[in-house]
């Protein structure tokens, strides 16, 4: 598993499942956080501020949609895309 995906999985497990992703709390990387009841509306805010602080990416209101944030796989792809965007921006600026 790539490091980013593993990190995000751990953050979700530690913060929203209190460290216990076993039994009925087990989830796959594709599972919808909403449908599984893992991340609720305030959880989305926590997730977003974690991503901004930890990965130094800039998240706009327009980014706050389920396609970007509603599973481990979606968040992983979202963070990777945001990092590429900001690197490209930095190169242009340089």
């Amino acid at each position, binding site marked *: 598993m790539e490091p980013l995906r593993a990190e995000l999985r751990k953050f979700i497990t530690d913060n929203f499942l209190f460290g*216990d992703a076993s039994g009925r709390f087990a989830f796959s990387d594709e599972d919808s956080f909403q449908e599984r009841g893992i991340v609720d509306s305030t959880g989305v805010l926590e997730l977003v501020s974690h991503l901004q602080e930890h990965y130094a990416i800039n998240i706009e209101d327009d980014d706050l949609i389920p396609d970007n*944030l509603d599973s481990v796989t979606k968040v992983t792809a979202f963070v990777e895309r945001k990092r590429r965007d900001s690197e490209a921006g930095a190169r242009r600026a340089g």
Partner: protein
Amino acid sequence: MLVDDLLAASADRRPEKTAVICDGERWTYRQLDDASSRVAAWLADGGVVPGDRVAIWLENSIALVAAIFGILKAGGIFVVINARVTPDHAAAVASDSGARILIGRETVSDIQSAMRGTSRRRRSSRTENDVAALIYTSGSTGEPKGVMLTHRNLTAAAEAISGYLGNTEDDVILNALPLAFTYGLGQLTTAFGVGATVVLERSFAYPRAIVDTMVRERVTGLPLVPTMATLLLKQANGLRVPSLRYVTNAAAALAPAKLHGLLERFPGARLFSMYGQTECQRASYLPPEQLAVRPESVGIPIPGTTAIVVDDFGRRVPPGVVGELIVRGPHVMAGYWNRPAATASVLRPAGPGERELHTGDLFRADAEGFLYFVARADDLIKVGGEKVAPKEIEHVIAELPSVADVAVFGVPDDVLGEVVAAAITPMPGMTISADVVRRHCHGHLESFKVPRDVSVRASLPTTDTGKVSRRALRAAALAAERPA
């Protein structure tokens, strides 16, 4: 009138009108009325007879709506269980209701195939005084308590609410509230009563996506609780919904800043502040033109009902004096399911054939008769509109062998209004960490009941009578948050 008449009448009048939009599907009144008749046939084949309870533990969906009306047409009583609750809680509700069938996520395909089946059922004959729904609410110790609402209760409230909101068949109402709550269920009954369209959402976790849907579907009515208003103002800045005609707020008061934020965000919309409890669904509303005059008021009784403030002897108190709110009218519940003592303590005789509801909530009225919520008379914590009983959480924490004493209380939160906090003393010679307590709670409680703050201390403050004082803990937490 029966609740299912609301759907049937609109299906007769405007069969091709869209009734519900959900998950990208659009169902007309005719389709939904037919689908629910097929569900009724499937239930009757499965042995459901009039008066039977059928529990449905599903997210907001077309299947849930078809099931509700199918159960009614089969003569049954529907029990919607909030999709957010734990399996244990859902089982406790289903068992308390004595449900013949529980339809959950694993069996939803049965409903979906029944909706597309061939046999239809003529509607069972019932009277409007038959119970239509059990709406479960939290008792003071966290035990589930079923509020019995009759067909008349539900249709009377729908008519009164549609009346003051000015709902017509041109309205499109976006509902993200669970149908397990009267506030969410009421969006269906009010809309179906006038032939309007309901856009059903599962949650309000992504306000940006909700606003996009509102623009696309030209939504005219938006029911909110304060948490949703906060999320909307935080995350969906700069977005306009020109079609929006009104916004409603209930469950808890909106802070003035949020009220103004909403008015700025939706300049064309009228804002209704409302108050209710499950036992009467809705008690009062503030006509929007009064918002500038008395922003903190929850208004006047809904049409066709009364709501007055009384003292301990049941006498109406003068303006400005705090007392208990008493509600009368066709919207007041028939009682609590299988709980005659609890029923007798809140529903008291009030003249021939009428009973009045003692809400347990403290209110005052101003000189013009407008009502103001003062406080709840119990310790219930309101987390994002969900009532949480401290005792239920205390019982779970007390199961840990290293816990000597525990007190659970509410602390203010910007998004949720209140969140749960716990103070704990360890058994002599033992240690305990906040993480252990929270993990244990998460294994046994819904996520919104897991204490966000857990403090471990040497002793807990007590009242004069030696009981642990939740009020003192709450006051100390408030003082710590706002240092002088």
